[in-house]
């Protein structure tokens, strides 16, 4: 089984981040997270509750950006905030910066008072990270993204949550950081980013070079698992027949 792309590996790794979540609202932000969550729902975790990214809970698992056939619920923004506080939610957000301690920045680059580059604003990251399980997806792993310290803390990592007190730490649960190169959690020494696996074809040194801080690298780092034949068929034939995933994570072979 060698006929898969890096994007397929990422989709399966994202799916794995949601496999043990049980019956909760999976909230993917962005294309690969949406693909991975839908893949999880069709394989490892059929109990996941998924939405159209707007205001409907979908009973089926439609292809990316297709309209739903059956709707099973209503999730307007006001209810999203209720579910965040209720806690039965796992969000996978993007991240312009992630630091050694698993803090995330989507607010701005530079000084907050007059940023070099204004981004979205912190959106729901502060609330997500102290209420429900949160993961991050980074399609282009680089030292510009993985920095020693984020410029502005939008999403709160475990060390800062503990420092902020029990109300912040009680439900802080930074689960996975998935990139185009590797998979991490934040259970390294002193609550730092720890390398869990490298994608097939990627070396640990490549990951180190693409990271702007010292990673916690365990003695034995396995390869990220290959997608199964079932997963590849679901990805190619059902969920992403237009291969939109390769726009976010280009096919390594085709790029050469």
């Amino acid at each position, binding site marked *: 089984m060698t006929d898969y792309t890096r994007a397929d590996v990422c989709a399966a790794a994202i799916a794995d981040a949601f496999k043990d979540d049980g019956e909760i609202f999976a909230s993917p932000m962005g294309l690969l997270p949406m693909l991975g969550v839908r893949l999880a729902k069709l394989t490892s975790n059929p109990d996941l509750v998924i939405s159209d990214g707007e205001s409907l809970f979908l009973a089926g698992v439609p292809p990316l950006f297709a309209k739903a056939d059956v709707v099973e619920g209503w999730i307007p923004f006001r209810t999203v905030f209720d579910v965040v506080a209720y806690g039965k939610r796992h969000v996978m957000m993007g991240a312009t910066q992630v630091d050694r301690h698993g803090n995330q920045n989507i607010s701005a680059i530079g000084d907050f008072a007059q940023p070099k580059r204004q981004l979205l*604003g912190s959106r729901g*990251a502060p609330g997500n990270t102290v209420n429900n399980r949160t993961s991050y997806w980074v399609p282009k792993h680089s030292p510009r993204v993985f920095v020693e310290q984020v410029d502005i803390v939008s999403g709160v990592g475990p060390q*800062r949550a503990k420092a902020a007190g029990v109300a*912040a730490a009680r439900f802080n649960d930074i689960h996975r950081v998935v990139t185009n190169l590797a998979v991490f959690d934040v259970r390294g020494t002193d609550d730092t980013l720890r390398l869990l696996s490298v994608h097939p074809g990627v070396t640990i040194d490549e990951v180190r070079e693409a990271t702007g801080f010292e990673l916690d690298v365990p003695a034995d780092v396995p390869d990220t698992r290959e997608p199964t034949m079932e997963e590849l068929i679901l990805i190619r034939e059902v969920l992403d027949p237009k291969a939109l995933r390769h726009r976010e994570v280009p096919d390594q072979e085709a790029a050469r």
Partner: protein
Amino acid sequence: MSTGPRDKRMTIDEVVGQLKDGMTIGIGGWGPRRKPMALVRAILRSDLKSLTIVSWGGADVGLLLRAGKVRKLVYAFVSLDSIPLEPNFQRARQSGSIPEVAELDEGMFQTGLRAAAQRLPFLPMRAGLGSDVLVNNPGIRTVASPYAGPDDQHEELVAVPALRLDVALVHLNRADKHGNATYLGPDPYFDDLFCMAADRAFLSCEQVVDTAGLTVDAPVQRLLISRMMVDGVVETPNGAHFTTCTPDYERDEKFQKAYAAAAGGSDEDWQAFHDRFLAGDEDSYQAAVRAFGEDQ
């Protein structure tokens, strides 16, 4: 002699005539969705200045910033969705031209509006703890729970201050002349909270109908706004353009692209966009939008 509730219909300019320099104005909708854009455009044309704008922001915020109307911006994000970063917002932030900003978590917005709507000074929540929202807003305090938790700890929570508004501006699909209004799209957003958090609320809508017409083809649960929350009603067809107003119309993506290109372009690009679309009144805006659509 009529015994019915009063007729609150007014014109766009009459609404803006009620606004004053320095007011705190909440703008309903969400990002690039169901924004009271006709009212925002009227503010652009007015002499109003030094406004505090409270908004889950889209082009409403970008336009007001570009026109120099904003003294303080309260936001959690500013985005056009299909174009994630709002160029006029970026430009204003990166040039340091907004005198005061308050970036909140997007859920804190709801809590702050709810506190204001319930006439409370604050409401507690977790959002903000540990993040730079509290660092960059040193005025936001925490409060200790008077009750011990399961582990005997008294949690220290964020005391989200009430987001009290002088005026709320919202756009709904249908309203009657008294201010009862329905949303027909997928999400109510927070327009009821905006109205209740404000001293006065002005509602624009696609169409004013008889009261009985509000529930002819829509379930009663779509009646989001009650007239007791509303001070003025104005019919502005296509008044949310170029944001969504589902099911009356979706976002005008081509126009939004042109807006973003002009906003992110040179001063001349912006001036040309301004002169073509924003220099006249709402009727001339709508005529220019129709001409733009025919050119595409």
